[in-house]
């Protein structure tokens, strides 16, 4: 938590432009992690239903 707080503080200190970039880069990374998990679940369902057939 301390580490995350430090990163956020450092980001805000560097100005609005850098803050927009940093938050959108991390935001996108998290979105992609969520998308990956979604497809992982879909693949798992396919794998299980495939095995049953």
């Amino acid at each position: 938590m301390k580490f995350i707080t430090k990163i956020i503080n450092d980001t805000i200190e560097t100005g609005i432009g850098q803050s927009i970039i940093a938050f959108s880069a991390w935001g996108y990374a998290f979105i992609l992690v969520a998308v990956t998990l979604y497809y992982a679940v879909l693949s798992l369902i396919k794998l299980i239903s495939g095995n049953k057939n």
Partner: protein
Amino acid sequence: MEKISKNQLFCLIMMGQIGSTNLWALGIEAKRDAWIVDIISTIAGMGLVWLYTSIYSKYPEKNIVGITQSILGKTLGWPLGFVYFMIYTFNATRTTSEFADLINVTFLQDTPNLVIQIIFYIAIIYVLFLGIETLGRIAEIIFPVVILLIISIYIMIIASKQINLKELLPVFQGGFKPILKAFYPIGINFPFGLVYVFFQFWKYNGSVKEVKKTTYWALALTGVNLTVSLIIMVTSMGFNYTSVATIPFLEVIKLISLGDIITNLDAIGVILVFMGGFYLTILFYYSAVLIFAELFHIKDYRWVLIPLAVFIMWYSKIYEPNYPFHVKYLVPQYWQQWVPVSNIVPIMLLLIFYLKRYCNMELNIQNK
């Protein structure tokens, strides 16, 4: 479509890498063990190259905008492309400001910073108006000269009897912790993560096999160059001075004295600083221009060149007041940008690609 040969691609990658590596003492946070950081980073950097080229190999005729839109679809892919545009523009700003400051501080003290930047961008815009082939050919001409200068500096500093290998001892003085700290995120991402920018240029070669081979060779050579350069810096100046010098490689050049005849070779340093800065800036700037033109369906990217150059020069004054500010925000910048964009996003893109393929979903694959 314009084409670049594998030699030109190799020279372009090497010039970008020299701009970001040779002049500085990368990994010096690990003190005398910095050379170990460089070796580990080189090996791990090959993993990054594998990751990037694996993604590229599925879409050899597309750049990062096309690849993300093919894998994620337009709704998710387009904003990601815009994030890349912002990041490359920001990095072009940082490198412009950095190299203009360095030239200002070291060689052209009385010249206004803006004048240096304008001259810099006149050359860059002229090259980019002529296209990627011209850029590749220039790299092909300049790279042998630059590498010859670097090798001759290595030879001359050894011949000047300035090297003391005992400066590298003791090894592992602080244990593994400082080495790991210096290795991630900076060591691996700088310079190896910067290869990410070549997603824009690999398609101009188009051959997956050539791109992979060329990129691996260029990065391996960068790793060797980086390690040798660091060992020379530390053994000739000691790690204390190396860690505080503004441009350590320039300080090494100043130490060269062969029989009091061959000395004061600072001019070589100027050439290296300028060439390094030129190529590093041009790669980020050109990538940003190409991404913007593709995102907004501008047929000729040349329309974007001048407005973006003006924006970069303006923003470099707003964002970065001086060189110490640049250095201060180097580490935070890696956590803010390169970790998500160069490490997490590509891993996720490759995973999503394989998972979607497993689920038989639309991927517009060009190369199965």
